[in-house]
């Protein structure tokens, strides 16, 4: 199987990653089976970005990142250079917290970056610490990712030994420790203030806002930068090649490349490094260089454009570019770079239920609208699937959704109706609750007839046995 997959762009030692034509800014080493070692990293330009940074001033490094318009890759897409600028001057010490708690349904790029190129991430952390005067870095890795933890720990040990991390980095006055920390199975910890709570040894519940940014009040009450793994992994290339070179890739408002995990009913599902803002959903899903279309004999029914939290898209949205602004205006988000493709065999209600079930299970319980609301949504969808649906259930679902996200919920344009742009309003501290509303509103708006048919017919929906691995 591996032989065959290698031919098709898959790489045996990095399952899921597809190496295709196109610029590779952050996955350039993935084809090497020893890409995670210091020897390979140094042989392929490793730590040159750090050296380049150390030869200039911290302020100049920050300027470079600002000029590159490096957008955060965790989900919100906030420009890293601007976020960095929120640090209040003089309130030292500042900390760096790396968000490696990747758990958004459909998403996996941070895991690959941590497993395949941990030194690139470490170098990115060092560049950020140098630029901003961050004095200690905590690299928080999702608990379930044993291999990523192993690769990060081994890489940190090598980097300390070689003088890249710790006291007097590369013989200069720059000193910073990077300490690996663990999650232990809680999706909500991906929210940055919940991550900080977890890092302080507490239940991972989001903090009340304001302050909106941990840059003001973060870890131990100190100014803290929380950046995503992929965001930081861009910094070494950027320091070596410069912001101007970085901006030659991607579009004006979304420069560079991004990793997209494209899963579901595809001929060649995979994780692709893609030029940001230029490539369209259609190219990514149907292009020969990418997923090569929907599995044989089927057509696209709907897709999730940016992870489990994103409102769903349909065939008419295929020509949108992979860029935050147009996707937001069309009623959804690129989020964490996770695209899930569902073909015409997919039961819309069942698919929505499964995503809602996830949020109901993962709600931390701090805010009532989310704690109760996500559970009610799940129970009502479950009873519709069980053939116990009531005629009032569709309105009830929408009403519960309205209590979590008041007002018109972001939705894709449909049949001449205008799109309602993302993001939603919320009665909760964090966006988890509103995320559970996304699949419900998306599918009711588009496939109301499927809901009505189930409620009227009152037949339980049999589990459809899909032959595993067929046509993959």
């Amino acid at each position, binding site marked *: 199987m591996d032989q065959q997959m290698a031919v098709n762009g898959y790489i045996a030692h990095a399952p*899921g990653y597809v190496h295709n034509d196109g610029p590779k800014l952050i996955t350039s080493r993935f084809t090497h089976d020893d890409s995670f070692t210091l020897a390979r990293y140094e042989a392929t330009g490793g730590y040159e970005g750090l050296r380049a940074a150390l030869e200039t*001033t*911290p302020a100049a490094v920050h300027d470079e990142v600002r000029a590159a318009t490096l957008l955060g890759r965790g989900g919100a897409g906030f420009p890293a250079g601007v976020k960095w600028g929120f640090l209040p001057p003089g309130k*030292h*010490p500042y900390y760096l917290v790396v968000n490696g708690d990747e758990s958004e*349904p*459909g*998403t*996996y790029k941070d*895991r690959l970056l941590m497993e395949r190129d941990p030194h690139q991430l470490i170098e990115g952390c060092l560049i950020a610490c140098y630029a901003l*005067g961050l*004095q*200690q870095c905590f690299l928080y890795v999702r*608990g*379930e990712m*044993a*291999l990523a933890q*192993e690769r990060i*720990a081994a890489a*940190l*040990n090598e980097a*300390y*030994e070689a003088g890249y*991390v*710790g*006291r007097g980095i590369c013989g200069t006055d*720059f*000193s910073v420790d990077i*300490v*690996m*920390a663990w*999650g*232990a*199975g809680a999706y909500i910890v991906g929210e940055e203030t919940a991550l900080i709570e977890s890092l302080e*040894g*507490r*239940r*991972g519940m989001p903090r009340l806002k304001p302050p909106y940014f941990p840059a003001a009040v973060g870890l*131990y009450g100190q100014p803290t930068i929380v950046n995503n793994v992929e965001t930081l992994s861009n910094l070494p290339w950027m320091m070596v090649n410069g912001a101007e070179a970085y901006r030659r890739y991607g579009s004006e408002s979304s420069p560079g490349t991004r990793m997209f*995990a494209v*899963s*579901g*009913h595809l001929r060649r*599902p995979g994780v692709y490094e893609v030029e940001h803002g230029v490539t369209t959903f259609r190219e990514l899903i149907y292009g020969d260089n990418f997923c090569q279309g929907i599995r044989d004999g089927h057509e696209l029914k709907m897709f*999730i454009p940016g992870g*489990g939290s994103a409102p769903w898209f349909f065939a008419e949205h295929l020509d949108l570019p992979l860029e935050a602004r147009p996707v937001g205006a069309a009623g959804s988000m690129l989020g964490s770079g996770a695209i*899930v493709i*569902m073909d015409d065999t*997919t039961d819309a209600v*069942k*698919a929505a239920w*499964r995503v809602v079930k*996830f949020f109901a*299970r993962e709600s931390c319980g701090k805010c009532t609208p989310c704690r109760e609301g996500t559970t009610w949504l799940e129970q009502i969808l479950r009873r519709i699937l069980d053939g116990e649906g009531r005629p009032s259930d569709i309105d009830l679902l929408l009403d519960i959704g309205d209590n979590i996200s008041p007002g018109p919920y972001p939705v894709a344009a449909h049949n001449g109706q205008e799109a309602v742009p993302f993001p939603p309003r919320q009665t909760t501290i964090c966006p988890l609750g509103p995320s559970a509303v996304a699949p419900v509103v998306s599918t009711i708006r588009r496939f109301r007839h499927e809901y009505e048919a189930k409620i009227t017919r009152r037949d339980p929906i049999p*589990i459809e*046995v*899909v*032959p*595993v*691995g067929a046509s993959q």
Partner: protein
Amino acid sequence: MTLSPANEALAAEIISWFPRSRSALIPLLHLAQEQDGYLTDDAMRHIGELVGATPAEVKGTAGFYEMFRFEPVGTYMINVCTNISCLLWGGEELLHHAAESLGVEVGGTTDDGMITLEEAECIAACTEAPCLQVNYRYRGRVTHDDFDRLVDDLRASRLDIPRHGALSAVRQSIPAERLAGVIPPEQAREAPVWLGRNDVEVAG
């Protein structure tokens, strides 16, 4: 069981890397789970003493995180993902098959104490659907036959997978002479020395 002397030494090292010892709580809970396969009351009490938390605070925190177990589980925990991408490729059917073939309910442990079966949420291997983890090691594009073979291999100890609780096979260690030193928040501090390079630049 409390932490063994060797693990207590490791715990002291981990605590020393954090500005507040309470920050070492989750890493130490993983250490205890690696030692015993699950979290015993004694271990949690011991960890509480080490990081300055009451037993209730330790258990209350641990209980928030799904990976921590308070009762013994199987030598191997199999987590089958049924979230959206896996659902589309038969993750639910795989979970049903697993339960049937192991003769346990989801969440249960086989009579021989070898295998605990769990339903997982997205484990970040979505293009490899349906996927599962055995003690947090991945298996992708798993057919029903693959699953049965996996179970046979586990029972015959043919796979190099440590028992439940052990995560990374490599531990971070920081040589004393390389340690930059923790920066406690309460210590009113000047800007780090290298930020002074900005002023030199301006002055120059």
